[in-house]
């Protein structure tokens, strides 16, 4: 009986980790955020970013991700805000054009929920962050993709985003949750049994 079970288990394990995701389809993905101004939620987004990830739902701990956001592509909700937020006191895009997240570890939380730890660098400051996310397979065959969704709990003052008078978090809240939806295609067509 044991002799029969082992190959069976191995087969199951192999077919489960036959799905591995690699290339992020930027045009299908989005990074949005909600800033709170005087208690008023204002939606914004980043138009340009690049991401690479490798993720196998059967071996999440081997997962890796790197995301680079072009900060000048920000839409903070109004023209005034867009002009302001790229300036020196906010992102200072001239000196620091990109925000970068590099993962250090991934952990399964169960029920298709995961948690990635990593380092976020914005405006020359690097901070450790923990980001919960969900994974969902979508589509089939060569069009099969993995959808990764989550919210990165950014605190703007940790990165000096909004200095001087803008540091007042009673006007613009410190928490600026960054919502992401990354759609990735399969890294390689693994043989299926």
């Amino acid at each position, binding site marked *: 009986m044991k002799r029969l079970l082992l190959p069976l288990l191995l087969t199951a394990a192999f077919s489960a980790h036959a799905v591995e995701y690699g290339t992020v389809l930027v045009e299908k993905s989005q990074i949005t955020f909600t800033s709170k*101004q*005087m*208690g*008023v*939620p*204002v*939606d914004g987004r980043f138009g340009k970013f690049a991401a690479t990830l490798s993720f196998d739902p059967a071996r999440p701990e081997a997962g890796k991700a790197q995301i680079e956001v072009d900060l000048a592509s920000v839409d903070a*909700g*109004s023209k*005034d*805000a867009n*002009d*302001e937020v790229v300036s020196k006191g906010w992102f200072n895009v001239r000196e620091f054009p990109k925000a970068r997240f590099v993962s250090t570890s991934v952990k399964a939380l169960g029920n298709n929920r995961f948690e990635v730890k990593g380092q976020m660098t914005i405006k020359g400051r690097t901070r450790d962050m923990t980001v919960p996310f969900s994974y969902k397979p979508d589509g089939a065959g060569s069009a099969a993709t993995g959808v990764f969704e989550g919210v990165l709990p950014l605190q703007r003052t940790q990165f000096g985003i909004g200095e001087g*008078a*803008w540091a*007042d978090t009673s*006007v*613009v809240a410190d928490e600026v949750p960054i919502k992401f939806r990354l759609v990735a295609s399969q890294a390689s067509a693994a043989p299926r049994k």
Partner: protein
Amino acid sequence: MTPLRYTRTAMLLHWLMAVLILGMFGLGIYMADLPLSPQKLKLYSYHKWAGISVLLLALARVAWRIGHAPPPLPASQPHWQQMAAHAGHGLLYVLIFAAPLSGWMMSSALGFPVVWFGVLPLPDLIGKDKALGELLKLVHQYLNYVFLAVVTGHALAAIKHQWLDRDGTLARMLPACTPSDLPENRP
């Protein structure tokens, strides 16, 4: 018998709105051209909170008015003046709704929901639409210029009746006046 003056509730609503609306004219004109700053965000919020308050007071006022007929205009007033007064008041009733509503709609269209006093999120009246929002900004602006003109006319007319014609029109809306200030009670 028809009362000679407005009820205390009507007076309270009238003067509360008068203060709010006059303050809002000044604030609105001042804040619109400010460069973006935390101060500007604060002022915009105060303006919106006050605007929603005006809207609620307007609703209360209409509800009260339905059950409480206003005192008649002095019989000494010429017919055309009485007609003009009714038309002006009608216009003011329209504007106390139209001005805040246009601001609320503009806010919704521009993607800035209104959170009353920073705690009560109000629903968006219309969906996010930048072009429509810019149009509504103009509508809000010009509607309020009209509003300011009508309010000025309203105040000037009240002053003229009270101090030039001395017919007691304004006293009908003043809680501090004793009944002897009304022309009917003068010797």
